[in-house]
């Protein structure tokens, strides 16, 4: 069956680009602050006033370069960064007027670079040193870009068919169309970086081999699939992994399976929001997000919450799944139990506790799991690295693991925080890790 046109349309980018006049007006509104708080609020420290001034003077090439110099995935970040929490939240104009639309201006400049097919950077003079990077997500790509500019011969090993990591496969197209991260990949490849796709380290090539044959190795494998719920009925057809669901919409013709169906999403981070809005856009009639705590403890951003509500997603608080109900191997319902908030846990969040005897059932056709991501524990252990539940331990500032030749960056070292993991943090890690690797290799070269 061919995909109805409107499903496809549901997956085109939701937020429209700034119109030319809008961009110029907005750029001219920026104060060009000195020691600007917006720069400090950007994990990659993009010189925001400078790139905005360059838009105002019509120097779009320079503007795009200023952005991408600081953040090798700056075009993706322009779309997926929680700007209210970062740069825009820090803009001084919050106190006097409205904050500058930094994300949209960043998109304006990087879109120009994409449209005009420009090359922004050049590779450095080869220095004869080789670095292997495992994983071509935001962290791996950022590190590769920096290392290539410093003259390293860089090879990235990537398990998937295409590079870009979750930007390419995990973030819904209507927020981040695939061509954006793929352009960023091209920019990195243009510097002579080799990306070996369809190559899973630990399976197709062993960690030992990398550690032995390269001067340094960067582990940037992110996180894995969504963990199991550990409830009965989980194996039924119709129980889906949120990340796999999104990936399908980005890699295959849209499925019409969900049209008119009832979907529940379990979890409340940005993965849950993406899965829920995605289901809605795949034609589901009724989409509910189930969360065992309340709106206050939710791990997603206010704008995401609003966006999901606008898409018609319903939220149900203080419930947890107990059992997936099925018939003929297919999901037909879900048994839930009501929760209440008890004593705060170690992080200060109130712990949800089940209310005995409060079980009830709802009818559903699909259950989407979005309760976080697994860790690549096996791979980390193959490398022999010190870790905590799969979160690789690194030395602060240098990103060096317990193995002197191996560094790690991105989600693979993300140990939780105020927000979910972010692309911009991964990019920053990658960039910094590259400079730490460079320093380590240069220090080594120095005769003692």
């Amino acid at each position, binding site marked *: 069956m061919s995909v109805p046109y409107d499903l496809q349309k549901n997956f085109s980018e939701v937020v429209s680009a700034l119109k*030319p*006049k809008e961009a*110029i007006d907005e750029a*001219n509104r920026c104060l*060009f602050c*000195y020691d600007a708080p917006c720069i400090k609020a950007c994990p990659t420290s993009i010189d925001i006033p*400078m790139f905005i*001034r*360059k838009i*105002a*003077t*019509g*120097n779009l*090439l*320079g503007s795009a*370069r200023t952005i991408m110099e600081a953040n090798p995935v700056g075009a993706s970040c322009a779309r997926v960064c929680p700007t209210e929490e970062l740069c825009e939240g820090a803009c001084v104009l919050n106190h006097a007027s409205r904050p500058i639309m930094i994300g949209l201006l960043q998109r304006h400049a990087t879109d120009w670079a994409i449209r005009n097919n420009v090359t922004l950077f050049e590779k450095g003079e080869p220095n004869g040193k080789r670095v292997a990077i495992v994983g071509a997500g935001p962290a791996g790509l950022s590190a590769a870009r920096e290392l290539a500019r410093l003259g390293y011969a860089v090879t990235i090993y990537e398990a998937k068919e295409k590079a870009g990591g979750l930007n390419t496969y995990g973030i819904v197209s209507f927020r981040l169309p695939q061509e954006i991260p793929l352009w960023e990949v091209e920019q990195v490849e243009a510097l002579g970086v080799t990306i070996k796709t369809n190559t899973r380290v630990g399976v197709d090539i062993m960690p030992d081999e990398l550690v032995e044959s390269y001067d340094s190795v960067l582990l940037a494998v992110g996180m894995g699939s969504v963990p199991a719920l550990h409830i009965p009925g989980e194996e039924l057809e119709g129980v889906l992994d949120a990340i796999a669901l999104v990936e399908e919409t980005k890699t295959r013709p849209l499925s019409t399976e969900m049209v008119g169906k009832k979907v529940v999403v379990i979890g409340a981070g940005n993965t849950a929001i993406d899965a829920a809005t995605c289901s809605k856009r795949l034609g589901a009639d009724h989409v509910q997000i189930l969360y065992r705590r309340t709106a206050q403890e939710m791990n997603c951003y206010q704008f995401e919450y609003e966006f999901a509500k606008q898409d018609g997603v319903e939220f149900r608080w203080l419930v947890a799944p107990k059992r997936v109900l099925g018939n003929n191997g297919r999901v037909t319902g879900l048994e839930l139990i009501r929760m209440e908030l008890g004593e705060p846990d170690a992080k200060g969040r109130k712990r949800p506790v089940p209310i005995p005897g409060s079980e009830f059932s709802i009818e559903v056709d699909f259950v989407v799991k979005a309760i976080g991501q697994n860790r690549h524990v096996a791979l980390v252990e193959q490398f022999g690295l010190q870790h905590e539940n799969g979160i690789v331990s690194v030395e602060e500032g240098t990103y060096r693991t317990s193995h002197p030749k191996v560094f790690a960056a991105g989600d693979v070292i993300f140990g939780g925080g105020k927000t979910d993991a972010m692309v911009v943090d991964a990019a920053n890690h990658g960039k910094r890790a590259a400079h730490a690797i460079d320093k380590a290799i240069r220090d080594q070269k120095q005769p003692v």
Partner: protein
Amino acid sequence: MADLSINLAGIQSPNPFWLASAPPTNSGYQVQRAFEAGWGGAVWKTLGEPIINVSSRFAGLTFGGQRVFGFNNIELITDKPLEVNLKEMDETKKRFPKHTLIASLMVEHKREAWHEIVKKVEAIGVDGLELNFGCPHGMAERGMGSAVGQHPDLIRQQVEWVKEVAKTPVIVKLTPNITDIRFTARAAAEGGADAISMINTINSLMGVDLDKWLPIPHVDGKGAHGGYCGPAVKPIALNMVAECARDPFVGVPISGIGGISNWRDAVEFLLMGATGVQVCTAAMHHGFRIVEDMIDGLNNYLDQRGIASVMDIVGKAVHTYSDWGNLNLNYKVVARIHEETCIHCNKCHIACEDTSHQCIEIVRDDATGKERLVVREEDCVGCNLCSIVCPVEGTIEMVEIPTGKPPLSWNQRQAALAGGGSCET
């Protein structure tokens, strides 16, 4: 990466962006910070007998929400002793030997005074001299600055005195407070100036306080005319540069000054004959780091056009600047409205209807209820007004309508008429 270095009358500079003689170049600390930020050169705050400044000196013009659209000041020349300035200039030149350091000078109308100061500043190794015949306030009342700059004879004589001893190139900075700047520019050239720079500031009163009924700015209840500069003066400065660039009797290189805020402004000055530019207000508004975009923007502009050196664009548009009498009377443009981007503010209609030639109609389509703006091209005189007021860039385009007639200027027409021939425009 294009070659951005310039050569202005023998003065080399790594790029065409200099700070003009003004508060940004008051001290060694500032000029060195500027060089670190990327400025190619600096004209030091004018040296002379140290003066006493008043407190409350500047005022800014906010226009439509944009601050510092214009700027004015009643500040005088340096307030530091010459020895202190020379010491700091010396340090600066030693730390930044490749950057351009120019001494701006203003002394009383005496040959010995000029000889003495020229020798002193050249002794510390400046790359050139700029004679300030431009400041319109305070110094003029003491017979210096624009009091000299308004008299071609005084200019010529003082330049001659300077040239008697100067070993480095001499730039003469001109005042715009004069009817026709070419006369003072020619006098400077006759006196032996190696280059001229323009413009200094324009006589102005920034405003009047509506509550206190006092001039802005005022000093303890009284104000005095100040020097106007900033983006608002750019067209005046650009015209003066272009007029001097195309004047065969001036014939010396020009350093362009006045309202230059970004690389685009700079390119315009270069195309109209300036070999480099000087900036004051934009730096005072935003700090030295604006030079980053100036350099980057200029470089990208040249690269995108495959131009190897910035010197290759100097003066390239001067031949297109002429007298009104040489413009083609048989050339015709009309307004064309691109409906796709029109937002229906009707500003073009009312501008033309009330203040031009009544040829933009609002046409209502009864079927759809939609309105369209339609130009009656046969009545359009091609004044550009509608395209100027239209808020959406590119929506009103002025397009050429071939008239089928050969080019004919007013001068040609008058000549033909005088010669007895007949001539229809």
